[in-house]
């Protein structure tokens, strides 16, 4: 196993708080949008890659997401959920793309390992991780989406709730139940 990332959930909330100042500044000074871009471009890209398994298309949709966000920014009414707004645009672009490609369902589950060309990827080939990946790929799309939003996009529960138009506690409960189920299945596989 590689080093365990020292992940701090509190950092999500800090990021959300910091957004307010940047959003306010960007509202008055369009160039300040760059700070918001810097903060979220990798999250958006990673989220799209995780859905599409195609880096080039993910780049294209990342570009579209930020170009749209920049154009629509004057109409953005800040409610403290800038990442939720941004990801909703990314998800719209994704749906638009998949609709055009006639792959609104299913295809992204038909992933092959070869599609991912990433040296980092080689590091995490432990048996348990491989098993976990298999579990994830067998999940319904809505469960996969929850995992992606939390663990790829690093959204806070609050932003996830806003994005999914659900109650924050409900999102939290659903995710934790899902994790518990996955944990149980993983442990039983390794017994």
């Amino acid at each position, binding site marked *: 196993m590689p080093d365990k990332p020292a992940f701090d959930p509190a950092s999500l909330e800090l990021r959300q708080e910091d957004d307010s*100042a940047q959003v306010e500044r960007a509202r008055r*000074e369009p160039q300040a949008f760059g700070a918001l871009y810097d903060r979220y471009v990798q999250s958006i890209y990673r989220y799209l890659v995780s859905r599409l398994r195609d880096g080039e298309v993910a780049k294209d949709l990342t570009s579209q997401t930020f170009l749209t966000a920049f154009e629509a920014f004057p109409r953005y009414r800040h409610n403290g959920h800038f990442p*939720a707004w941004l990801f*909703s645009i990314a998800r719209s672009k994704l749906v638009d793309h998949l609709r055009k490609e006639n792959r609104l369902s299913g295809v992204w589950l038909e992933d092959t390992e070869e599609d991912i060309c990433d040296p980092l990827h080689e590091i995490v080939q432990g048996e348990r991780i491989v098993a976990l990946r298999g579990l994830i790929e067998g999940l319904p799309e809505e469960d996969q989406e929850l995992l992606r939003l939390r663990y790829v996009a690093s959204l806070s529960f609050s932003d996830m709730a806003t994005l999914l138009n659900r109650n924050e506690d409900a999102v939290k409960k659903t995710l934790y139940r899902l994790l518990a189920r996955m944990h149980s299945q993983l442990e039983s596989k390794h017994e």
Partner: protein
Amino acid sequence: MNNKPEEISPDFEDEIRAALQVPPAETVFVTALRSQILEPQRVHRALPLHTWTRRAGMALFAALLLMTLAVAVIGPQKVWAAVRGWFGYVPGVGFVQGENSLRIVEAPLVQDREGISVTIDEGLADARQTTLHYHVEGIRSEQRPASESDTGCIESPYLSLPDGTRLEAGGGSANGWPSGYNRRDVFPAVPAAVDRFTLIIPCLMDTRPGAAPEDWEFSLQLSPAPQDFHVLPVIEIPTPTLQPTGSLAANPVSSAATFTMQPAAPTETPAIQLQVEKMVELPDGYIFQGSMKGKATAFSPLNFDTYQLQITDAQGKRILFEPIDPPADSQPSGPNRLVWAVQTRGKGYASPLTFSLPSVTLDQPAQASFDLDLGPDPQSGQTWELNQDVTVDNFTLRILSARFDARVDGTYWLSFEMRVDPHEIEGVSLQDLDNHSAKFSGAGGGDGSGSLSQSFSYDYRPQGVRHIQIQRITTYLYGPWTAALDLPAPQRTAEQPEATSADHACLAGVGPGSAPTTLPDGLNGWLIVEGPVAPGKTFPTLFLASLDSSQRTEIGPGGWASLSPDGKRVAYIYSDGMHIFDQASKQDTLLAWSQGQDYHPLWSPDGQRLAFVRGADGIYVTRPDGSDLHRTAGSSPSMLLSGWLPDGNGLLVTRLGNDGSWLQTLDLASGKTEDGLLIDNRKGGSALLSPDGQQVAFSEITFGEKAYGVYLAQLDGSQQRLLASPQAGTSISPAAWSPDGQWLLVSSWDADVNTTANYLIQPDSCQVLRLPDLNGQVTAWVKK
């Protein structure tokens, strides 16, 4: 509430992250996209929408006259080339193709449903594509998405042909405002045999599903373009004068730094040619389109910023231009060809024109690496002096130092300082190949003098030996490449004045330290300043400061601060609503009547009332105690607040709309508005009314410059002049008028280092002073 089961340990969540791990986007992509998003044309994005079907006096005769004139000036074979290809230019559409296949959509067509109107303004079909312009008006705020998490309608319009063929929009543009939008959609060509088709608009942009009428259908009829249809001829220009090819890093110049320079290796030099290929005479100027051509294998990673192009007339006078989208003609950019296109504003240039490109950049993968040992427990702020030379593709860069930082947001950053020959290397991209962070960011850049920085983040604390790879290197390739163009005499004079160079501004290209700082006697006052955001805080730190910075009072975190005319009270916004800070008692009061959506409070001239914006609801006025709180008559969600009129009976507002931002006066008693100046800035332009109510300062793109400038004009738009134009990489905006209206304070923000410099400009004398000790955005200035 925490429902987390015990078995869900952080370790298990880390495993989930590892299982979902995907590679980060390359720094090159991230950096390029950032530039694209924030390029001035996009920030600007307020070019007027031209019409092409009802333009009086625009006859084919004019086109033929211009062609006849062109025959006389540049020779018959060139015009023959134009006719043979039959490319024309239609303002608002772009280049069109096919002499006999131009068809127009019979328009306008209007449909009204439930108070919303959709108007098909114009449409044009040629052999390549079909372009439709339409606009929508009347969308109400309640039809917009209620939450930022919902982007509303995302379905694109399409064309339905009689045989059931569906043509999807493949490009276009749109501009929106609170009550509507306009849109230009470009569809594939409608077959010549088809003259009737249907435009389907499944839903209106940015409306909630079901909230506004959906499934709009327009039956459109195509007719041959009439004889008087206005198409500007495109003059194709044969092979221009070609100048020497470039050389890699031909002018290495030693710098004072201690890095080791190695002579540039004898690299194969790509043969490059700059060409001007086409031109169009517009009513207000010209469009020139050209290309850089070179060997296919060496050319694909080449790039240049179109603003680097220099155009001069025969007398050496610089001609300002703006880059535009190149036409999608039969020879687009490819592996051995980079297409550029520019538009000028003005005519009557002394021919011939000279086009010159001093350098291009070459971006290529690199294979070089070095190790950095962070040790078992690196500490935030720890630095390592490396002073290590790394050779990459025969270029040498010196890695000066590395620094480790732990940030409050939970991320860890490694930053590298490097030194390169600024004439050889524009940038490098570093990466830690062993970085397996789920969250990942990177940043980097240079100051143009050879100092480069690059940093990237981890979402865990890295330790031990890190293998740092130089992934890409961007080097310079020097010309200059030049091309000359014999310019035919203009067919008619320009319809508007020539663009003004930023060189005429009072404050032009000025950076920190380059303006005097001594204040004249008698110039003083109180400023309210938004300083940097303190760690862990949401809002900037507000403080009151005397103009000379000798006195300073910190208020606390907040934004949108406004200082009462007597300087005693500060109204500002915090996350819980509007506050008032009393300077004498230091008492801070949350105004009970305020709401979380309130922002931009402004004190009335008598200090008795506050105007502010309440979310998407519009502009409100109240007394500070909440009495007489009301939405102002005539207010609309499209309005931004720009100031009070001096008599206190009205407001200056900015109405966002189809054309840009209209400055309007809003009479508080009647709600009547009156149009003033149109600002070519779709974000409002940060307009500031002078204390006497006669002049307005605002922010607008300067034609031909890659940045906003600060302008001054009378309220009706007359006597407009450029006051300040920033140096590259910074943005500048008007911040506050002095109480006597003699000075304008402008704030210049450098995004790269996140610092703000403030300047005073006296418009009448063009005197410029710098306020050295204020790192923050000034929002008000009152008498002391």
